[in-house]
């Protein structure tokens, strides 16, 4: 565990070194969030009735999404992992006395967290001071405020657990690019990265909500804004936990199978 902490520290420090990059990143995301909100405002003006949530809740959703982008971005992959699989260097990793799955998982968590820590506070800080309904508002209720962190962590872990499957799939393909590209655009869309899931057509909603992708950024953000509350929130969190267990389970079994293949075939 200690090595991951120091790894996290180094990432964070090197992130801080690049001050212009940090400022540029924050302002880019800020502008991005702002433009998205203006776009939804135009639709809201067309027909407020058809809007699936309060406008202020949507803006909160968008600011959270921007602030926590590094946690939930589908397109981030650790290229070292892909390289070590395709070059066969993975065989050395297998000799080490640590569990490959856990190692990759923790590394991914550390990289994403170190990025998010640097960027989320400035964005949220500015967004808090924007006038209603354009800024970020406090959690809908005390319960929402309490459930949000739990759901956020679960959602984050579900996403990382899913991305682990993409890494493992690289054991079975010659080039991982194809799977990566497909997975990235599918996850980005199904998770609500293109438009939030409540904006999907009604008939699609039940299907979307059952998929693991809804358990990523969608659930915590909707709990925060109170769009999902009470019993429903508990059920959503439970579903997140189930998906986490399932995805980690599948990943662990799969990686055992995959690595056995490497050992048998010598890469």
């Amino acid at each position: 565990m200690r090595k991951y902490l120091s790894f996290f520290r180094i990432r964070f420090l090197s992130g801080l070194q690049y001050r212009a990059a940090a400022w540029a990143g924050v302002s880019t995301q800020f502008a991005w969030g702002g433009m998205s909100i203006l776009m939804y405002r135009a639709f809201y003006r067309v027909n407020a009735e058809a809007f699936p949530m309060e406008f202020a809740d949507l803006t909160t959703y968008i600011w959270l999404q921007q602030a926590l982008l590094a946690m939930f971005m589908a397109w981030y992959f650790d290229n070292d992992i892909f390289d070590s699989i395709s070059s066969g260097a993975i065989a050395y990793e297998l000799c080490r006395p640590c569990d490959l799955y856990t190692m990759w998982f923790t590394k991914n968590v550390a990289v994403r967290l170190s990025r998010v820590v640097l960027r989320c506070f400035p964005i949220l800080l500015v967004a808090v001071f924007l006038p209603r309904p354009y800024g970020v508002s406090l959690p809908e209720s005390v319960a929402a405020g309490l459930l949000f962190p739990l759901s956020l962590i679960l959602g984050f872990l579900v996403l990382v657990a899913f991305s682990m499957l993409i890494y493992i799939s690289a054991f079975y393909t010659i080039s991982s690019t194809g799977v990566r590209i497909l997975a990235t655009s599918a996850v980005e869309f199904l998770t609500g990265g293109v438009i939030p899931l409540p904006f999907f057509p009604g008939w699609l909603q039940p299907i979307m909500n059952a998929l693991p992708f809804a358990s990523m950024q969608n659930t915590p953000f909707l709990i925060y804004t109170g769009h999902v509350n009470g019993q429903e929130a508990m059920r959503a969190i439970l579903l997140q936990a189930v998906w986490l267990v399932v995805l980690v389970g599948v990943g662990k079994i799969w990686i055992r199978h995959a690595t056995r293949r490497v050992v048998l075939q010598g890469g």
Partner: protein
Amino acid sequence: MIELKGISKTFRVAKRNAGMTEAVKALFHREYTLIPALKEVSFKIDEGEMVGYIGPNGAGKSSTVKVMSGILTPDAGSCIIDGRTPWKERTEHVRNIGVVFGQRSQLWWDVPVIDSFELIRDIYRVNGPSYQATLKRLLEELDIGEIVRTPARQLSLGQRMRCEIAASLLHDPKILFLDEPTIGLDAVSKIAVRNFIKTLNKERGTTVILTTHDMSDIEALTERILLIGKGQILLDGSLTELKNRHSKLRRLTVDYAGGSLPAIPGVKLEGDLSGHATLSVDTGVLSVSEAISKLSSAVEVTDLAVESQRVEDVVVSLYKEFAI
């Protein structure tokens, strides 16, 4: 041909400090340090000369080469190459020069080398017949005729370097800048590259400026060396002259039989291993021939070799002398 007068250049570099608090501070405020890269650099190189440009890392070698090839504009001073100021008349100037950056490739990685050559021909607007002639000569002299149809990525380092050199000479430049041309090469390739450069300089009269860390390159190729340290030219002279002036010591290796070596004033025994001895002779005290005759009168000398000091040693002592 090449004349630099009082070239100076200072860089501004941002300070980066370690530690969390320093990193946070740097988010808001950053300090800069001024680093003088070149201080009043002046020298003159005649047409057809071959010059070794040496100095430790960060001494200003590549800055000088960048100034001479028109990539870098100095703060002060003048540089006239073939009647032109490189950074003022870039396009005309670079037509006359060839540059080999030892650690970067100008060949296209994925296509046969000859295709890269043809593109370079078009970039330099070399006309058909003279391109054919130059190409034929280069393929022959660098012995790359067999490999130019192979993609660059499949070549060994030595093969690739020979192709790089050919690529830089397709437009038949009057001046060739070589930046570490033998870095990472095996002994055979090194010799091939050196021989080619020598011929190029001798037969085509191409002016060659060579920067390197490899002293054997310098020894094999150049008569004149320029030593730069901390942005200043410390020494400009011929290699032999330098060796002579700098060190009065000669190294003597002797194989002998019968008896033991006598103690001679001015001769120091560096090592003696069952009839094979290394001695250093201080030519300030006695001449090498005197030393030899004294030796052979005491023991039976079966074999003997005289060396002057190696360039490496000269350069190391030079670095020490100038404290760089």
